[in-house]
């Protein structure tokens, strides 16, 4: 049997151009490669748990991670979905606070870990890395602000339409027939928590969206079929 050695080097990472190390020179990138620990997390496995102490930075190479918070009532809500090229744990790292959320793999996900001391050194020595981290933090902050205002100002129908548009932007794949496949398998329950509604309400609105021709569903896969109408229903200007 021929065993194939898996290449986990940063330079060959499919997400290097989207990651925080995208502007590093070969030698600097090699140093990161040599120091990191790479693992594949299977669906449902956790990278870190809300309430525990942070000790480094996670970079997603492939796959998707859901970041969830559990409230006092024990209910879990999805804060965001982190995908290839994203980093996790950076906020807790800088503030030295305990993790305020749990990160769980939504599918088999390849993740690289860098310990706190090392990543701090890289950030201090490479302004491009710090700028990229700031950019990630700013993007996250913008998304959090939008989500907050949506929850306050929009109804469930508008929020669902907005979520579908966001998923199209982050995980959409254009099909030959003009439809867009959302390449992220979320359960109805997960989608419901993302827009702050009950499962039953989400199912009702999904049916309405299908009847009105905004989306199609084949098994668990969702296709966006009428983006313009979806934008209209989301009450946003794109």
């Amino acid at each position: 049997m021929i065993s194939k050695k898996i290449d986990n080097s940063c330079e060959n990472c499919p997400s290097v151009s989207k990651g925080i190390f995208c502007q590093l020179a070969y030698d600097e990138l090699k140093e990161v490669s040599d120091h990191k620990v790479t693992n594949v997390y299977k669906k449902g496995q956790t990278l870190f748990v809300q309430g525990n102490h942070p000790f480094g930075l996670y970079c997603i190479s492939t796959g998707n991670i859901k970041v969830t918070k559990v409230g006092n009532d024990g209910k879990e809500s999805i804060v965001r979905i982190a995908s290839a090229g994203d980093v996790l744990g950076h906020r807790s790292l800088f503030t030295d606070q305990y993790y305020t959320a749990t990160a769980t793999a939504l599918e088999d996900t390849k993740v690289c870990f860098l310990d706190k001391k090392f990543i701090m050194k890289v950030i201090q020595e490479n302004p491009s890395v710090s700028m990229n981290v700031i950019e990630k933090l700013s993007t996250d902050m913008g998304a959090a602000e939008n989500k907050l205002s949506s929850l306050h100002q929009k109804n469930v129908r508008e929020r669902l339409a907005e979520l579908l548009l966001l998923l199209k932007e982050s995980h959409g794949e254009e099909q030959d027939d003009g439809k867009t496949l959302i390449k992220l398998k979320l359960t109805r329950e997960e989608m419901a928590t993302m827009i702050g509604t009950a499962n039953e309400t989400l199912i009702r609105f999904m049916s309405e969206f299908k009847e009105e021709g905004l989306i199609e569903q084949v098994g668990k896969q969702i296709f966006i079929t009428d983006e313009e109408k979806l934008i209209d229903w989301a009450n946003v200007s794109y």
Partner: protein
Amino acid sequence: MTTKKTLKQSIIEVSPELMAKIINLSEGHKYTVDSHLYYEGQTPIVAYLLIAGEASLVKKRRKTIPIRRGSIFGLKELIQNEKSIYGAVIKSHSEVCFLDRSLINEIENLDKDHELKEILSKVKNQHAS
């Protein structure tokens, strides 16, 4: 010899004196909830020294090896960058010290003879042999 090694199980027991020295190098952290430290088939992202509480190595959810207080685990796999045949879990309120790659490099570069240097070199030599 201040350490009793059970490398077969990836657990290295250290003396109370060495444990105190490690705590000096890397402060202890308490886990607030039951957690997986690493899963079967993964390389631990750091090595752990159990200071207090309960942790164990697990295999296929059946075999469980309790880890004693004052034991380092995950070090062999971290140094050798190999997948662990065991997963590791920890109970809430347990306390550990993290031994990450930066700390391991620092210990290796220490001038004076540190017992941890001895452990690290033995784990490395085992890989080379």
